[in-house]
């Protein structure tokens, strides 16, 4: 946050801050005093309240996905016009013929929206059938492999971004205003300003250049797999070669946020009283930062991971377009261009689910990092 509230010790703030510790809920392990260093890792079986806490959160997110998906359905049905897919066809069809052709796919505009929605919704809930495109292709079969393709891209990029961003911030924060700090910050601020498309194309350009100079086509700039490779290990290697550049370009965009925010969070907590106390007990500045400031400052970062997933997903849409990946991102562009209501909704559901998974993992991370959540 930007403003530090003046910590006036007025009585007003005393309200329910000081919580009584409830023995039944705290559940200290009955081990001896030696547990001091180990007790901080909460094991799932000892933290009944923690599991419940995460479950409650997960249920909330599930509700969020359901609402988000349904809202998208209504919007998509409203804004996309599946009939336009048939208008350009020869022989020219009448509007009625077109509507008739759309009927089996639950896209007939003459049917009231509520009815279409109900068909769609019950199919999703009962059969996990996400419907058909305007030309009759099954959405399920389209998204099956795409989910995996995009899932691995988004997951890898998110993990790499978090790790790279946090590591860089720790490295530079203890050298505040030194050369490394300045250079990495400069680079990050610059990357922060580069549009995803430009970054992706720059990575493509660099990849091509590297391949040419190495004289060996190691990095692939198009597609997610080569069609000709067979065998387990060659396939894995091939996939990996395809994955490098898109992941890199997504990471380049994603790590920046973590680096800059984590750096400032760290610097804020470096100036906090408890780091000063830690230094007063004999830790060097760098030690105090690593042992005391870092973990406390990771807590807000963990929560922000969830909210950054939509951005990563947006980045993935562009990255996949640039790299010609058959993933959810590219599918998303296609579905909107082709007025594919059901396909677009499935993409929205995928995006919301990714966010929710990220959020639940972030919650788990917060619980692990912050004893206050556990104890209270």
């Amino acid at each position, binding site marked *: 946050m930007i403003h530090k509230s*003046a*910590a*006036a*010790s*007025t*009585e*007003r703030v*005393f*309200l*329910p801050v*000081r*919580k*009584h*510790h409830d023995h039944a809920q705290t559940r*200290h392990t009955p081990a001896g*005093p*030696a*547990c*001091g*260093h180990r*007790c*901080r890792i909460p094991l799932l079986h000892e933290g009944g309240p923690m599991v419940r*806490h995460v479950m*409650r*959160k997960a249920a*909330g997110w599930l509700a969020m996905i359901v609402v988000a998906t349904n809202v998208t359905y209504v919007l998509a049905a409203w804004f996309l016009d599946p009939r336009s897919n048939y208008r350009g066809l020869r022989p020219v069809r009448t509007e009625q013929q077109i509507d008739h052709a759309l009927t089996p796919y639950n896209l007939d505009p003459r049917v009231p929206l509520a009815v279409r929605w109900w068909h769609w919704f019950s199919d999703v809930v009962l059969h996990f059938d996400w419907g058909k495109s305007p030309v009759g292709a099954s959405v399920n079969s389209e998204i099956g492999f795409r989910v995996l393709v995009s899932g691995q891209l988004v997951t890898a990029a998110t993990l790499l971004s978090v790790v790279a961003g946090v590591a860089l911030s720790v490295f530079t924060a203890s050298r505040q205003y030194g050369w490394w700090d300045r250079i990495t910050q400069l680079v990050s601020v610059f990357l922060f300003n580069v549009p995803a498309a430009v970054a992706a194309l720059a990575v493509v350009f660099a990849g091509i250049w590297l391949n040419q100079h190495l004289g060996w086509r190691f990095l692939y700039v198009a597609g997610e797999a080569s069609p000709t490779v067979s065998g387990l290990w060659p396939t894995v290697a091939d996939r990996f070669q395809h994955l490098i550049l898109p992941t890199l370009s997504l990471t380049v965009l994603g790590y920046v946020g973590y680096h800059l925010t984590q750096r400032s969070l760290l610097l804020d907590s470096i100036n*906090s*009283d*408890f*780091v*000063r*106390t*830690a*230094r*007063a*007990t*004999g*830790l*060097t*500045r760098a*030690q105090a930062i690593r*042992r*005391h400031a870092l*973990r*406390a400052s990771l807590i807000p970062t963990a929560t922000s991971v969830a909210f950054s997933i939509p951005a990563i997903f947006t980045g993935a849409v562009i990255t996949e377009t640039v790299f010609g990946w058959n993933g959810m991102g590219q599918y998303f562009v296609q579905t909107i261009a082709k007025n594919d209501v059901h396909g677009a909704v499935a993409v929205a559901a995928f995006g919301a689910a990714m966010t929710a998974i990220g959020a639940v993992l972030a919650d788990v991370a917060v619980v692990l*990092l*912050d*004893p*206050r*959540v556990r*104890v*209270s």
Partner: protein
Amino acid sequence: MTLTTAGMHPPAESAAPAPVLSVRDLSISFPSEAGPVQAVRQVSFDVLPGQTLGIVGESGSGKSATAMGIMGLLPETAHVSGRVLLGGRDLVGLNDRQLSAVRGKGIGMVFQDPLSALTPIFSVGRQLSDALRVHQSLTKQAAWNRAVELLDLVGIPDPHRSARSFPHEFSGGMRQRVVIALAMANSPSVIVADEPTTALDVTVQAQILGVLRTAQAETGAGMVLITHDLGVVAGYADEVAVMYAGRIVEQAGAKELFGRPTMPYTIGLLGAVPRPQARADRPLVPITGEPPSLVKLPAGCSFADRCPAAVDACRTQEPALAAVPGHGQVACLRVGDIADGHLAADSLFPAVADAEEHGGAGSGGEVVLRVAGLAKTFPVTKGALLKRRVGTLHAVGDVSFELQAGQTLGLVGESGSGKTTTLLEIMRLRQPEGGRIEIVGTDVAAQGSPERARELRRAVQIVMQDPSGSLDPRLSVFQLLAEPLQAVGADRETIQARVSELLHLVQLDASVTDRFPSALSGGQRQRVGIARALATEPRIVVLDEPVSALDVSVQASIVNLLTKLQRELGLAYLIVAHDLAVMRHVSDRIAVMYLGHIIETGDTEDLFTNPRHPYTEALLSAIPVPDPQLERSREHIVLEGEQPSASRLPSGCVFVDRCPLYRLLDDGLRQRCRTERPLLGSAGPGSGHRHACHAR
């Protein structure tokens, strides 16, 4: 307890032991927008083993910067010169790694705010054992065991279990004990305590000072005790240094300094501080003016502008610290005149002739505020997202009092006693959760028409604790003063006229109207706060800790202003303050609160000289007196524990868990204390002095 410390011997009585810490010509400056801030200038002192040097000064005097300079914990931008010799080794100029070998081992430090001084995510046992393992090669187990011992030593109950607790599970006093344990963990030869009790309640302060004594006795360390509280220094320090504008202006033994202050600043400071044992008719004498800016210091003595003894030479030449026979060192050009009695200390700051007798004026006036059976609860919730109610906090249990025009009622109590909640409930002007509030004869629950509601608003106004927090930084003084008038619908001319009237009333120059709060000093800000409260010509002014955010030398002038305004305008004051000495000065009557209940009430003098409730007694006893002889000879009642949370009220007397009297009672009376809540009863027929205790 099997705790022995290698270097534990009684403070050497023999010929001058070598100092453990010698500071020589320490100067610290910070770069700033306006130029270098000279926070500390040419400070020198010695700390002997087992002895305590108290450093007193007001905010901005450089005392905390001195502490940080000794520890090497200043921001990297700070410029430090001089020498800090710890056992002969100079610490100035060492790098962070070299200093880290000294911190914690050679010097331990206790910080001001215990609530933020501990890492929230580690158990206190882990923090302690980590601190031990930084300097000693101990196994984890051994360090942990030693940590538990240390917790026991500083008086943490059930140390085995507590070691596994996290800081947020502890109260402020308990956390400060942990911080002290951290400071003494590696038996340092020096302990630096920077305002160790400022953030704590007065009964807890007494405990913490006791713990500091234990720590010092255990380690045999010399101590640097930094505080603004002259009473704390008087009771604790062997030697006292007074700092002003970055320099030590007087340094002497505690007895000598308090007995015969010689630097005019020290004289003024001691005259301005209210004393709990003194009757209210001894007026407080403020030091006029404000401390100078540390950016562009005047050429001569930095106190010259405020000094009644200043001569022309004072403005051109800064006096050096010079030894005064039998007294220590003083930095003043006129030290000779003052020391030999040529210039009587008493005559320097003459009391303003205060014609009217304080207190008597208001009694018998119209009752303007009547509170009966006031109750207020807060839900105690749990869970970050879905808040579940897990209990009820009884912030105010059952509070009744009356306030007459021209009179001052003081609500006294520690944090959590419900005194501020009581004020806020009155200020809301809505029907309270329980009981009734009547303002100038109107029940706030039945205000009726909007005009009547507006009338009520005009009748009650508030002055808040922290003037920098209660004045919107984006508004000019004029806008600030105009706001309450606009809210009651005054027109532009009225507002113009009233604003200049108000400034005159609070003795502010008309030139401040277009300034912003940040360009005002603390005292000026609080004057604006008072002027704003008076804008609508209220009958009742509620004052929430009106002087606690101010320095002692400024505090006195605000107290005097409040007294003057009351006399001139016939205001009724309802004051909340934790500083009982101030309360004795301003209040006609006092009500002592504990856990949301008034446990004793009576006329101020009566209550102070003859407290009846054991809590009142302990509270009064806990206030440190700025007089070393009195402070060291009088009997202290130190309460155990801290005020519990009001979410689990005892069903009997609210004070029963900490009551020192309870232990002395027979079983029948104990049973009564446990089960039956005592009512306020008169000490004698017709007496206004009432208290709620079964045993007395």
